């Protein structure tokens, strides 16, 4: 086979065995890899009624046909599992090197099933794979784990990729994630908790010699160049040169920066968090993923303020958002520290930000007192208290045990008015780090997302191809629904390949060229577009069988509240919500009452087998 290695690694933790399993080319053509293939495995092997912590749950860690090429962004990997926040199908990706290294070792993916009686990690290398003792890694944070495994196995810095869970995953914090290659994160919907329930601490893949066969390697080289040029050009090269480090000021101006748990949309100190200011100030150094020339990912040392000397990775926008405006603190150095501490403990920065912000609001309003919070003074912007609280959550210590359930469950447990202050969806997931009252497409996506994480967005190179409104009025309900529904699957294609969004910008046309140059399958553009739609729909069906009902697709009162200030205060989404949901179901071809995709939708995507 070209492009694919033709096999995955099966890991049965209950038996303590690993073995190679062949991949069928027909399945690969239909699902490509990554999220698509993961959804198929999940559907076929995990009863949707099971609890996420059941040993029969699986985790599929997948690359795809482009993994291991030098097309920028193809070091990414996708995790698919039944997630701990929504107890539904989930898929979450991390960038870095793992996807490339795994394919060079000879595997398209790793499928983990069962649960181990003792802590283990998986080591994949050129000669094969093995399960190794991870008891010495218990309670180590994700950066420490990376270092320890590399030292144990004798690999220097970039010659091995390690992704691990931190104490949060070990303690089954519902929003624990997997972190590796110096802070890249696959953190949505509790994949880290699932691994914790299996006592699987980490995955380590050695950088091996590339023996992958491609049909047209020269074409892939050209596409690599084209992708770099495309990435440099997209949005004037903003992301290529700065990653997401410069987003905060613009987000505040647009009214979609999350400030003080949605209590306000004004954050005067926004410019302190501008990457153009922070990068030169904090001695940052570029630390790119495999194949990528962009300056998205940097490591840095804080140089001023009480956290001067702290070394870690530059916060993504999501992390600036949580650890700056959302908890209402203004020291970027402190935000660097909290972002990295959250990564190290192994928790999703988005959920953690909503949790902490909600706690601070409860504290301000007296719903939670110091004695409830194990002596922590959770006033707005209290950095040290936040740091301590994150540790408590990761170790399920004291009130941290409640908070480890996520903001929805914690708020519901506390009860009373406090439930109305929390930001969540009724499915159990929470948004990314924005105020979606200024970003309607994403509020809709967060609520309907099958994976509990971003399924589509505006980040699509060819809007016309995906029938998205252009120009787009982001507060026009019809536009919003059309953008969400019509482009559904566009980003999922990237998640099946598996390729980073910030290099591909979901350029489905170039991705189709790349698939064909790698595999020789001669797929049409329409076929490739369908792959994304198929994966999304498959997970939809699975989630419905797992107990999802349309009434759960609702934002919490605070989430869809009306802004009290800022540029969007006269644009409440709530009055439009019902109509938008009706229209969304219509465009998606789903039954409005049951939420199930209609027979013709299922047929079009070749998913009849899954609905019998």
């Amino acid at each position: 086979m070209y492009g694919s290695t033709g096999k995955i690694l099966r890991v049965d933790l209950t038996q303590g065995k690993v073995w190679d399993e062949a991949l069928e080319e027909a399945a690969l053509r239909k699902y490509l890899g990554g999220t698509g293939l993961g959804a198929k495995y999940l559907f076929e092997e995990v009863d949707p009624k099971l609890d996420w912590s059941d040993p029969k749950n699986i985790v599929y860690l997948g690359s795809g046909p482009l993994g291991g090429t030098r097309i920028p962004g193809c070091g990414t990997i996708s995790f698919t599992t039944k997630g701990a926040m929504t107890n539904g199908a989930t898929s979450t990706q991390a960038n870095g090197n793992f996807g490339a290294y795994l394919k060079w070792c000879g595997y398209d993916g790793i499928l983990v099933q069962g649960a181990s009686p003792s802590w283990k990690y998986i080591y994949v290398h050129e000669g094969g794979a093995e399960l190794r003792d991870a008891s010495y890694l218990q309670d180590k944070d994700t950066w420490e784990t990376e270092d320890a495994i590399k030292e144990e196995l004798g690999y220097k810095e970039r010659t091995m990729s390690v992704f691990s869970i931190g104490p949060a995953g070990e303690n089954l914090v519902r929003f624990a994630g997997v972190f590796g290659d110096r802070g890249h994160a696959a953190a949505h919907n509790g994949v880290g908790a699932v691994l914790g329930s299996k006592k699987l601490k980490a995955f380590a893949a050695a950088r091996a010699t590339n023996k992958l066969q491609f049909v047209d390697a020269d074409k892939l080289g050209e596409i690599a160049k084209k992708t770099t040029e495309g990435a440099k050009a997209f949005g004037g090269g903003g992301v290529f040169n700065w990653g997401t480090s410069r987003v905060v000021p613009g987000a505040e101006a647009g009214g979609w920066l999350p400030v003080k748990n949605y209590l306000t949309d004004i954050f005067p100190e926004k410019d302190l968090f501008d990457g153009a200011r922070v990068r030169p100030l904090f001695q940052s150094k570029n630390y790119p993923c495999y194949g990528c020339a962009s300056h998205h990912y940097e490591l840095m040392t804080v140089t001023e303020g009480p956290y001067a000397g702290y070394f870690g990775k530059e916060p993504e926008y999501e992390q600036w958002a949580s650890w700056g405006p959302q908890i209402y603190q203004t020291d970027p150095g402190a935000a660097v520290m909290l972002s990295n501490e959250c990564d190290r403990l192994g928790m999703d920065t988005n959920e953690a930000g909503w949790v902490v912000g909600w706690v601070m609001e409860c504290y301000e309003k007296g719903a939670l007192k110091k004695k409830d919070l194990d002596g922590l003074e959770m006033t707005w912007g209290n950095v040290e208290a936040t740091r301590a609280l994150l540790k408590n959550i990761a170790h399920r210590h004291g009130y941290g045990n409640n908070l480890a359930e996520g903001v929805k469950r914690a708020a519901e447990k506390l009860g009373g008015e406090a439930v109305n202050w929390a930001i969540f969806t009724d499915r159990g997931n929470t948004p990314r780090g924005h105020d979606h009252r200024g970003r309607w497409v994403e509020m809709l996506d967060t609520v309907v997302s099958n994976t509990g994480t971003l399924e589509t967005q505006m980040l699509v190179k060819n809007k016309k191809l995906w029938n998205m409104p252009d120009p787009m009025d982001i507060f026009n309900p019809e536009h919003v629904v059309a953008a969400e529904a019509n482009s559904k699957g566009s980003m999922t294609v990237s998640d099946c390949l598996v390729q980073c969004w910030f290099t591909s910008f979901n350029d489905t046309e170039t991705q189709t060229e790349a698939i064909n140059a790698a595999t020789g399958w001669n797929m049409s553009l329409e076929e490739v577009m369908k792959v994304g739609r198929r994966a999304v729909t498959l997970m939809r069906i699975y989630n419905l069988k797992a107990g999802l009902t349309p009434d759960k697709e609702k934002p919490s009162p605070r989430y869809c509240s009306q802004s009290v200030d800022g540029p969007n205060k006269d644009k409440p989404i709530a009055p439009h919500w019902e109509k938008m949901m009706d229209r969304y179901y219509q465009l998606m071809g789903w039954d409005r009452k049951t939420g199930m995709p209609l027979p013709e939708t299922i047929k079009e995507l070749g998913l009849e087998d899954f609905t019998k």
Partner: protein
Amino acid sequence: MTHSLHRRGTAESLSGDYVILCLPAVGINDDGHDSKLREFLRIALRHDPVNMGAIMLGNMYSHKAQEVVDSAHGIVHAVFVSKDVVSEVLKELKEADLGMSVVVSGIFENVDECAEKAGLKHHTANFSLGIWGKTEKLPSNDILEVTTMCGHAMVSANLVRAMVKEIKAGRKTPEEAAKVLAPQCACGIFNPKRAAKLLAAMATKKS
């Protein structure tokens, strides 16, 4: 060596491009010459050079100006864009009487004018008879105008092309692009101000 010779360009472009070198004669007056070269650089620095270099360390774009001054040894360079400034620098050098040889690279008439204003006489000239041999292997002239500003060929033609592309795409200003090229020239005789003009012209050409 002749690293500041063979700089290609039109009269107009070259009228904004002057390199002054300062060095001892090894075995004759090189005892304790470091301090004299440091003094040269200090004098140069007072007149806002667009580049300065001490080869063992680097130039103003790879290091801080003071670091360049402190590492003066062997031979040092400063680059200016106006003949009036060159006259002023030469006047100060005459007064300073460092005893080191000073060479000025630029349009002959202009340099003579500067020397005269400073009360100096030219001694020896170095003429460039241009490029001979398999000239078909050369890149285009506009690229050469930029690359020949580094006599040791450390500014690659491909890097110049890449920078023109960046300017064309609006991702870099000509000045920013010139600052990517400048650090590669170890001696610090590359003229980034002139380079920015040349790059801008290349970026606006229809291709």
